């Protein structure tokens, strides 16, 4: 009986039917809806949008549902969808100085124009399981209506530092169109646009570990969280037939500026340098990790000695994409009968040679 090579087709169909059944779980439990995921698992949605590189809360929620809550799988689903979309326009750079703020904190100034706004944060919660949540239909406590702060009343901390020249000047408007890492293969050393795009799509866990390693001495980095701001920003495009910018919508983002010291050189006085992080929605851990990783990867630019993985752009950026990493790690599940047969053949010959040599020696 020879069965080893047949049955693949039927097995795949059966596996997919089983997957659909497992996805649904116990039919006695009500099915999760896409709006429920969108509203109640919003931070999962934000992560999937950020690393999936597509801002669409409903599609991200659908992807999470389809992936049974496996966020890396959901990110993959969103990426595979995104890659087919036509590019209709390129937006103007987002101006986070005009953000409609939902949260804004600075770890560098006790008080500053606009003040500190905690917003909805896990910070300062005691991580005690809330068994009251297990009971359904509990309504949340009433919150006072959020007061809107005029954007001009809340300047960015880096802009405040810039007025004194204490921080490197922000990059002036560039003439060349930024590289699009989904449309051109990466090159190293990575220019700033390529680095920031790759970090923005990078796996949160990986970047968190890289950022953490720079804090623990693998690459010297002494950062301060100058500012974290979260809120709605406008997306503007300039249609060629109009010639001026129009707003086409708003997205929620979290932005993080880290500042680090720089000793200066002949060309530049001692000043702060910055690491930049941004993520969709409330993906704050990601934005902070990205900012640390970004600054560490600028080591070459500032003439710092490159000694640690977190400072090595080819290492970090080549391994930060979880869709690539997940696929390649998991491809080991695919059959490797042929290569393994070659290895077996080789190993048997090596052992023959070893035995022959040993017998000759005895």
């Amino acid at each position: 009986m020879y069965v080893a090579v047949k049955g693949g087709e039927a097995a795949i169909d059966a596996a997919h039917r089983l997957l659909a059944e497992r996805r649904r779980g116990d039919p006695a439990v009500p099915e999760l809806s896409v709006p429920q995921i969108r509203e109640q698992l919003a931070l999962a949605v934000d992560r999937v949008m950020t690393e999936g590189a597509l801002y669409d809360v409903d599609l991200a929620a659908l992807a999470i549902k389809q992936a049974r809550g496996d966020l890396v799988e959901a990110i993959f689903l969103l990426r595979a969808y995104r890659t087919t979309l036509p590019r209709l326009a390129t937006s103007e750079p987002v101006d986070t100085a005009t953000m409609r703020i939902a949260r804004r904190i600075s770890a560098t100034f006790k008080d500053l124009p606009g003040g500190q706004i905690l917003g909805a944060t896990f910070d300062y919660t005691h991580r005690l399981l809330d068994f009251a949540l297990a009971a359904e239909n509990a309504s949340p406590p009433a919150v006072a209506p959020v007061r809107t702060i005029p954007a001009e009343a809340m300047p960015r901390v880096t802009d405040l530092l810039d007025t004194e020249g204490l921080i490197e000047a922000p990059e002036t408007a560039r003439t060349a169109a930024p590289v699009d890492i989904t449309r051109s293969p990466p090159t190293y050393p990575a220019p700033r646009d390529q680095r920031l795009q790759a970090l923005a799509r990078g796996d949160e866990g990986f970047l968190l570990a890289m950022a953490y390693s720079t804090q623990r001495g693998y690459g010297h980095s002494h950062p301060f969280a100058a500012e974290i701001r979260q809120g709605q920003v406008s997306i503007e495009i300039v249609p060629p037939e109009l010639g001026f910018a129009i707003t086409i919508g708003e997205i929620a983002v979290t932005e993080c500026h880290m500042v680090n010291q720089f000793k200066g050189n002949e060309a530049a006085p001692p000043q702060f340098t910055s690491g930049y992080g941004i993520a969709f929605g409330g993906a704050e851990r990601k934005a902070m990790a990205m900012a640390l990783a970004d600054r560490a990867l600028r080591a070459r630019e500032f003439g710092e000695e490159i000694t640690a993985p977190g400072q090595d752009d080819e290492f970090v950026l080549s391994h930060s994409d979880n869709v690539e990493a997940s696929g390649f790690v998991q491809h080991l599940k695919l059959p490797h009968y042929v290569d393994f047969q070659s290895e077996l053949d080789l190993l048997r010959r090596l052992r023959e040679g070893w035995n022959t040599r040993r017998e000759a020696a005895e």
Partner: protein
Amino acid sequence: MTATAERLSGGYNFAYLDEQTKRMIRRALLKAVAVPGYQVPFAGREMPLPYGWGTGGIQVTASIIGPDDRLKVIDQGSDNTTNAVSIRRFFAKTTGVAVTTRTADATVIQSRHRIPETSLRAGQIMVFQVPIPEPLRWLEPRETVTRRMHAEADYGLMYVKLYEDIARMGRITTAYDYPVMIHGRYLMRPSPIPRFDNPKLDRSPALMLFGAGREKRIYALPPHTPVKSLDFDDHPFTVERWSQRCQRCGSADSFLDEIVMDDRGTRRFVCSDTDYCDGRLAPQAP
């Protein structure tokens, strides 16, 4: 695109990729054919199949396939392994082209880890799925460095590695994905095919295309390109051999899979190339 293909593909373009992307990939392919063995960077797209599962080969196939093609997809030599089934279905769904398991009937053959036993002919195209395109990668992890080594044809490191194998182990210990020199210029990974298949690359009448999706590289062997497996005069290149014949079709000259029959060491050896094996058992009318 035909109405049938449009219906089958569910709103996606013929062969999934948009025409702009196909054009970009074809340009990379043309360059690859013009400089045999050179790895051409290309802007690999995210595919609806995972990286590492053949996205490079799929993008190459998607860029060259036309409605009149007949596609064969194999993995480990077999048309019926799960990933081969999955990729064949992907193209059947997105192109509606005819598919076949017969090597002789196929115009495009996408493969992972094997070259068919049946000799290829002029006009056929082999598409290989490549996990790691860089032959020097285990010796030097940095792309910035290996690209310079290729530019300078600086392959001494590879010969040192092969020499060290012989010094330590008595023979070269690369079992598959065995490095080859293309037309005396570029060192190339043939993708993880067994050494057994390396001689089939040499001066093949078929066009050989290699796609590495995750690593975003394409390379190629135009028909009749000289391909030399690296070796030394006193340690010539050798391929795998078996003391048995295929226990199914009796072939003595094909690559055999070893199948474990029980826990007492019983093994059965059968052809890895299922189409070749089937063809020997039930010869079909030409």
